[in-house]
């Protein structure tokens, strides 16, 4: 068995249908529906307490749903025999016995799934834990090492679906880049990846598809482009810096476009192409021209505003 095999094409779609989970009068997950496609990385994004973890726990049968259901590859998780061979799960990297070594934790997983010990060594190597680190007890692991171990545990059974809750939490920048490569490659081979995060920048670089959740409800979903397109409607903003900012501002204003100074340059309420054309006509040399990025972040904060602890300015 290769460390990460060529995942069978197109199996393992996650389908969440009208999922609701209530705790007394509190609704943690409120009529949530979405799908995660094989061959794609789906990012599950929302502020803390938005219902991400609860949704994922229902997926793997640890929490019973109040209403609705989740199927993975057409099956309810509990009906999948030896589920570790089909669905890799990492819900909480710290939820392991502090007194066991990293290697022993993987060994227990491998034995439960009926895998040889050689698989454990392969996974330790795959997640770049050294043999010495693998011999240490979990209580001596940093959060980043626990995450690596957790990812190794999720990949043990060579599953076609990965469900990871906040896997980048505690990883250093190099670790986050490593994980991004690993999961992208995994999805490219046909695997289904669902990963959650409360940090937009963690998800936007890796996810093909994004699901934004706030207050237990899906507030937006789609790929990055379509999410941004939806957010930008009509209100394009461009940042521009020219050798002669004053002349450029005059020329833009002459066209009836709102312009204001911003930092070293100008903030223009128009598409970059319009600003560039004006600069050309006015014979002004541009040193910087870009559309306002961070639209996704604004969108994220705006969409989840009601669940944020801090008011959005």
């Amino acid at each position, binding site marked *: 068995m290769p460390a990460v095999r060529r995942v069978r094409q197109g199996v393992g779609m996650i389908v969440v249908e009208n999922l609701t989970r209530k705790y007394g009068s509190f609704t943690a997950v409120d009529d949530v529906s979405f*799908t995660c496609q094989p061959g794609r990385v789906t990012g599950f994004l929302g502020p803390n307490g938005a219902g991400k973890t609860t949704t994922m726990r229902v997926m793997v049968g640890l929490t019973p749903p109040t209403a609705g259901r989740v199927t993975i590859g057409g099956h309810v998780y509990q009906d999948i025999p*030896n589920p570790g061979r089909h669905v890799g799960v990492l819900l909480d990297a710290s939820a392991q016995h502090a007194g066991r070594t990293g290697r022993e934790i993987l060994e227990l997983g491998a034995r439960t799934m009926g895998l040889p010990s050689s698989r454990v060594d392969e996974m330790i190597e795959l997640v770049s834990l050294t043999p010495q680190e693998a011999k240490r007890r979990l209580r001596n692991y940093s959060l980043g090492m626990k995450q690596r171990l957790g990812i190794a545990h999720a990949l043990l059974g060579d599953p076609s679906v990965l469900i990871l809750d906040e896997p980048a939490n505690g990883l250093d920048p190099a670790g986050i880049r490593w994980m991004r490569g690993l999961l992208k490659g995994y999805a490219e081979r046909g695997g289904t990846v669902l990963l959650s995060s409360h940090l937009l920048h963690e998800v936007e670089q890796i996810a093909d598809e994004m699901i934004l959740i706030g207050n237990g409800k899906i507030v937006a979903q789609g790929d990055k482009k379509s999410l941004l397109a939806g957010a930008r409607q009509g209100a394009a903003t461009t940042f521009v810096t020219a050798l002669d900012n004053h002349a450029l501002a005059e020329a833009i204003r002459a066209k009836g476009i709102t312009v204001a100074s911003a930092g070293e340059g100008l903030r223009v309420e128009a598409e970059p192409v319009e600003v560039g054309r004006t600069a050309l006509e006015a014979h002004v040399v541009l040193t910087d021209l870009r559309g306002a990025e961070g639209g996704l972040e604004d969108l994220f904060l705006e969409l989840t505003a009601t669940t944020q602890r801090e008011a959005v300015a």
Partner: protein
Amino acid sequence: MSAPAPALGHAIDISSTTPTPFLRLVRVEARKARDTRAGFWLLLSTALLCAIVMVIQLAVGITQDDVFLSYNSFLTSTNFSIAILLPVIGIMLLTSEWSQRTAMVSFSLEPRRPRVIGAKLVVGLVLAVAAVVIALVLAVLCNAVYGVLSDDPVRWNATVAQTAAFVLLQVIGMLTGFAFAALLLNTPAAIVIYMVYSFVLPGLFELGAQLMGWFDSIRPWIDFNYAQGPLVDATMAGKDWAYFATSGFIWLVLPLAIGFSRVLRAEVK
């Protein structure tokens, strides 16, 4: 198992995956019971304590002229060693999954929870029987040494019934611990409740029986420790079994059943 094709395709083919065999779960649970320092030392100290108590008993028997020991008295001394620690092993088998939150992993690798709990129960029973075997072997050794070194005649006075009762007692001890653990899902709470149950409660029952006549008459039906008394002496008669069954239902079957249903439904965090 064949599932209908899902509406959108993308079905995982589970036809060639065999469910996790129960025996494999038992082996994994057995490994879990000893692969941590806490688990390992608990098992080892159970055996060591059993040996130490018997050796002390042996030393006293050899040196004191007015103490007469037999095979059975060596076995009885295990009431102060393995009988105390076996229930703790039973408790730890279950509660460590909650205190260390490994239940999340265990139940996601085998979502059919009764099989995981069943595997733990089997490990508990195997450990109880293993403890009995160790105790029997130690008792044989001690009694043989006693026969050689003491002036008293060596007596092999345990009947098959007494040995069977001894096994049953240890298994009950393990199961009671397991039941309290399932009920509370918390190591310290389960241990404290078990200790209260086995050391404080008998005294209270005794007191109640002395003070109140009506309590004296219902006590045998509700005091499981009391009901196990005749078992130790292997003098169980018809009515004793009725006491045993009724009180056992209250203190063993009921908590076990409630605990099980709690574990099966609990949201694992």
